[in-house]
């Protein structure tokens, strides 16, 4: 199938006004960091253009933020739930009103296609605040006791793959339950969190309820280890999650972790093949594969292997890789040079270990960080590309003969975040879903998210759930 010709259709970036530099958002104000010189640059990964200078929060700044959050915690939790709800509804509305601006900003800072930030990230962000707003005055009906209490100050550290959506997943339930927060966005994608600080000001949110401290891993470590913090919520790599679990051991801080994954996407021979191929593509190439629940291990039943693979390659050849702001782009830029290096290294190891590598012909831009959609066939369970999270647009293809073999291979990983099942046979789907050790199972679909739907992992993919009634538990005593 030939590629349709498309004229460029870039979204205008004039809707976003990025300041040359940003301070830290503490106690309702943007303030400079305590020690000068603590700044870093955030770049557009599609062009390597510097977007802004951002402050590095040191121990003194983190302490100021935690103190502000602590001061705000009493009055905020004493506010009637219905009033807290109204602040969150306000925030949801402001996000809806500013969603085009925030979507463009997110694509600029992260590299994700505008189609995704506009149609998936931003609508989900607003929906998440709207959903948890409604819980604020109904907590006693949530099943966590007659008078559930907030924990206090929540330290939240989020990743760069869905910057504003992960912020929403963290801040909305924390605020609804009466906690105050200090949030650290990832160092490569700090801008949407800083814009969110402005949303909080627009909503007249009381100072100190939300504090945003920017910086790299060291700032995050200082934050989660701060003795004034009652609750730690982290989304990111399993390795950092382990370190955090060790560092909070014995402190009585409550901890929830949403970590890595290596999801199996299982295609049975009775699957609707065309839909399955769409789901495979969405499963691994959505957001450049920078998705902890990505379907990065494709398990195809041997009898339909050739058919699925041929169809998958044909579909991959139509993926448009390039300018994230172009409305026709399917696959955007890799978020950072560092991440690109990791994807390259693991892919090279895949080839060295004997797996066969294939990418559709595609021209990558000269500037920026890019990686073509890639599949590896002939992958065994021993290959590193079948065991380690690549966090990029790289799919490992394995085969199986029986449902039992599919389940065994799917579960043969220390991770347990998500899985996919493709089959037209209802009883098979339900039986396989029962056996998969994963927190989210998508049957005949993939990578679907909703604020009402609990999300989180088994095993080394972390603990606790975000979303839904379950998501309240992490922030209630």
């Amino acid at each position, binding site marked *: 199938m030939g590629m349709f010709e498309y004229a460029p259709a870039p979204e205008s970036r004039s809707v976003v006004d990025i300041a040359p530099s940003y301070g830290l958002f503490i106690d309702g104000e943007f303030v400079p960091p305590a020690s000068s010189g603590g700044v870093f640059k955030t770049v557009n990964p599609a062009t390597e253009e510097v977007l802004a200078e951002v402050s590095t929060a040191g121990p003194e700044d983190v302490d100021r933020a935690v103190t502000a959050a602590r001061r705000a915690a009493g009055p905020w939790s004493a506010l009637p739930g219905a009033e807290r709800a109204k602040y969150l509804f306000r925030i949801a509305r402001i996000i809806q009103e500013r969603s085009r601006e925030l979507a463009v900003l997110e694509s600029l800072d992260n590299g994700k296609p505008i189609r995704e930030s506009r149609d998936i990230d931003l609508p989900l962000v607003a929906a998440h605040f709207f959903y948890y707003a409604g819980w604020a005055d109904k907590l006693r009906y949530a099943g966590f006791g007659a008078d559930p209490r907030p924990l206090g100050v929540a330290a939240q550290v989020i990743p760069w793959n869905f910057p504003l959506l992960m912020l929403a997943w963290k801040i909305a339930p924390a605020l609804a339950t009466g906690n105050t927060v200090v949030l650290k966005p990832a160092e490569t994608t700090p801008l949407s969190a800083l814009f969110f600080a402005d949303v909080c000001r627009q909503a007249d949110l009381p100072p100190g309820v939300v504090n945003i401290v920017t910086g790299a891993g060291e700032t995050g470590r200082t934050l989660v280890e701060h003795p004034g913090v009652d609750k730690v919520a982290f989304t990111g790599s399993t390795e950092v999650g*382990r370190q955090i679990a060790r560092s909070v051991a014995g402190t009585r801080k409550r901890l929830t972790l949403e970590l890595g994954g290596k999801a199996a996407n299982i295609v049975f021979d009775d699957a609707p093949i065309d839909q399955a191929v769409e789901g495979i593509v969405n499963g691994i190439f959505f957001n450049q594969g920078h998705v902890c629940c990505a379907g990065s291990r494709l398990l195809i039943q041997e009898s339909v292997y050739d058919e699925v693979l041929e169809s998958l390659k044909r579909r991959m050849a139509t993926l448009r890789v390039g300018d994230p702001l172009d409305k026709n782009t399917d696959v955007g830029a890799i978020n950072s040079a560092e991440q690109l290096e990791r994807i390259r290294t693991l892919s090279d190891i895949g080839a060295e270990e004997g797996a066969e590598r294939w990418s559709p012909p595609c021209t990558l831009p000269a500037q920026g960080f890019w990686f073509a959609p890639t599949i590896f066939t002939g992958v065994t369970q021993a290959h590193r590309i079948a065991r380690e999270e690549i966090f990029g647009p790289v799919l490992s293809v394995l085969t199986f003969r029986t449902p039992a073999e599919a389940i065994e291979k799917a579960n043969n990983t*220390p991770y347990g975040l998500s899985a996919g099942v493709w089959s037209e046979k209802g009883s098979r789907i339900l039986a396989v879903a029962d056996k*998969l050790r994963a927190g989210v199972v*998508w049957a005949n679909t993939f990578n679907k998210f909703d604020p*009402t*739907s609990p999300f989180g992992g*088994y*095993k080394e993919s972390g*603990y606790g759930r975000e979303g839904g009634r379950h998501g309240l538990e992490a922030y209630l005593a």
Partner: protein
Amino acid sequence: MPESSSSRSRKSAPTSAGKAVAVRRSSAVRAGTTAGVPAVAPVTPPGPPGRLAVRKTYKLFIGGAFPRSESGRTYLVDGDNAALASRKDARDAVVAARKAQPKWAGATAYNRGQVLYRVAEMLEARHAEFVACGVPAAEVDAAVDRWVWYAGWADKIAQVHGGANPVAGPFFNISAPEPTGVVGVVAPASFLGLVSVIAPAIVTGNTVVVLAPAPQAAIILAEVLATSDMPGGVVNILTGHPAETAPWLASHDDVNALDLTGVTDPALAADLERTAAGSLKRVVRPAGDPDFTADPGLTPMTSLLETKTVWHPKGF
């Protein structure tokens, strides 16, 4: 060994044993509260004068069997030699627990509920034996009632803790709790505490390796479990020093969760938490000193559950 026989005298007291048990069975009033009945019900049946009592050997409970510690070690507790569990015993117990887990979790909730109820029946029947080893009668009653309480939860917790999610799209979406897997438990010293950590873990389909600091009551409970239709390996009980064996459970990669309810030393708890972080185990550590006579609430069950959410499109 005069010391030994005197320390055992409460168990082998020759008088009124049958009577005490008979009173207990024929009345709602417990032995010890009825006039003329000794406060402690003897266990060994009375025999002719001079008959030597048959004593019980307290061993471990692993995979439904009662082995001695592979280390050959015992330690003296109130005149009894109890097995002193080792690292190898802990690892054997994890293997047994892992082996039993899929089938136990795959049993119907109704079936698990009936097995737990059967435990309550068997425990009731051995009431006197627990009292004889020093557990207050009221605590045995409470333990029986706790098994009954949890038996009823088996087929209700999924409805209370899970449910349909009204997602904004044409999808069927449901969240259901599932057992975490193999749980290492450092049990509290009290008998009601022991029951209160085992029952909520297993009712949902987990299997447990329990480190029990009070060996006699724990092993009598193992005998109850062994006669309760409970599949071997669902509950494994190791007696000895939890401070010695718990680190091996905390570092074991095939243990999914760690319940530290019985750890009283904060430094040990912190060490175990740190070790458990290696494989990101779920760690249960209730704040303060838990009151086991209070309504346990859902937390003892839900903290050892995972939530699985399944999506499926709707369409014609």
